[in-house]
């Protein structure tokens, strides 16, 4: 489970902050599917993940709901 914590450590401070806030609020409540989708998001390169979070990139449909939660932080 802590793999998602560690992999939320990024090269960009912007992502560190946004992802840590997201995990602090939601980590314990994520369903198995959501964990899977989140791990998928973490596979993106930093710059692309940041684009996706700031609404410039093109995420997969399955990731949209999760992204909404991340963007709220």
């Amino acid at each position, binding site marked *: *489970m*802590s*793999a998602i*914590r*560690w*992999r939320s*450590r*990024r*090269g*960009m*401070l*912007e992502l*560190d*902050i*946004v992802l*840590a806030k997201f995990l602090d609020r939601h980590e314990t409540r994520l369903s198995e599917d959501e964990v899977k989708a989140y791990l998928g998001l973490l596979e993106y*390169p*930093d*710059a692309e993940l*940041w684009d996706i979070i*700031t609404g*410039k990139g093109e995420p997969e449909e399955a990731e949209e709901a999760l992204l909404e939660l991340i963007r709220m932080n």
Partner: protein
Amino acid sequence: MEKRKFDVAIIGAGGAGMRAALQLSTAGYKVAVLSKVFPTRSHTVAAQGGITAALGNVTEDNWLWHMYDTVKGSDYLGDQDAIEYMCRMGPQVVYEMEHFGLPFSRLENGKIYQRPFGGQSRNFGGDQATRTCAAADRTGHAMLHTLYQRNIQAKTHFFVEFLAIDLVRDAEGRVQGVVALDMEKGEPLLVEARATLLATGGAGRIFQASTNAFINTGDGLGMASRAGIPLEDMEFWQFHPTGVMGAGVLISEGVRGEGGYLVNGAGERFMERYAPHARDLAGRDVVARAIAIEIHEGRGCGPRKDHVLLKLDHIGKDEILDKLPGIREIALKFAHVDPLEAPIPVVPTAHYMMGGIPTRYRGQVVVPARTGPEEAVPGLYAIGECACVSVHGANRLGGNSLLDLLVFGQAAAEHIVEFLKENPTSPPIRKEGPDLALARLARWERREGSERVADVYRDMQGIMQSHCGVFRRAEVLKEGIVKLEEARQRLDRAAIGDHSKVFNTARVEALELENLMEVAFATIRSAAARTESRGAHARDDYPERDDKNWLKHTLAHGDGTIDYKPVRLKPLSVPSFPPKTRTY
């Protein structure tokens, strides 16, 4: 313990580590690169502004002018042989990256795009030069991805999510590899190598307000210090003038390069007073200190007068979106303002570590010994932000770090090739070789403890911020050392609650904090000892630079003692640039 054998072990997969790895793998050596995060998530990915080299694509240029600017920018603490080497090699390593496929932005004539950055001049202090090469605002990202792809082709062996714990040495001090923690399995791995290269990046997390990602915890410095290697010039930390108030996230100097400027609470463009010529593009230390003075003297902005504003709306919407595309999102998310319409609240924020593991310009780690102040440690090299070579001296110029990664990544690799030829075999590792590392791992198995790692972490950052920040003074530093000593003792009494094996982030953070603690101590002790102001080290009680007593490098030992060694004022082939008053 599992054991693997390589010719070279490289710890760190940022720009520096991967540049060196590429050279060595291409030369046919068996190279292991260890990284605690996936290589392309190394902190180099965050570099937005670009890489400085005297290509002369926009304005006439010359590597000697670049050298002059770098020596002056360093407030004359930089070693001029290393600076000459870096500036002279600049164009070559940039063209090499272009050849490797780094997608640089282009000028209309097809040449590599360059932008003006602070501290860049033509003709030894004349007009502004335009010297920083950029791939939009993603130069670091582009560099890292290019190098990673090339390394895969060259068959570099990556150990991803392996946390290096400590160096392995023989009885004479020769370095023979490293013990790392396989984070996924939770087991240690011994990587044996004839040469070991540290490229672990910065340690900005010692401060509360920092532009650095959470992974920048100075692990390489901790490892060096525990191996008896002193840390050089640790009092010199660059505070970036424009970190977003509260979050630390960086607003690139590129914004000021494209015409953005700073205003105080009265709406005054105050940099005109501090640097009449270069204004907002003066050296970072000059701008950061100017902001700190404005805030200190009550001319800050906002209800608490605790920041200044960076204005860029006059640049124009199209220009901002085209030339500075990432800036708007950052301002929206972390400052909650739209920079197309309103200025961004900023404060000076810890950004870059000029000091580090002492090296010569071909990457060899050097320590004081009977033979002199710079005897090479056999088998050990360091490059990139964790090293102090020292090209940045007391203050780094923007864009010179990415250059440093490539130039010294290449130079170290070349020296390692020679070293490997001279040392075709290495003596077997002693039984007690890995003990230092294994003891560190065992320490966090302890279940009894009265302190929490996260609390000590936060307190250390607070102490460094308020006792060793932009303004420094004897009493404040002294008090800081006492408090930091208390924090260290609390760390000794700390335990972690989680003892699981797989991806135990709590354990990793505890190990990282031990490294940060080494770095914080070296920093504050060195700062307290240096009774002058030079570059980024600004002493309120000693406001002047003092070349008579302090034109020398600090060496802070892990046991708390401090040594000094001379600055190399003699370049390799050109006349020296003697110390002069630094004005912009």
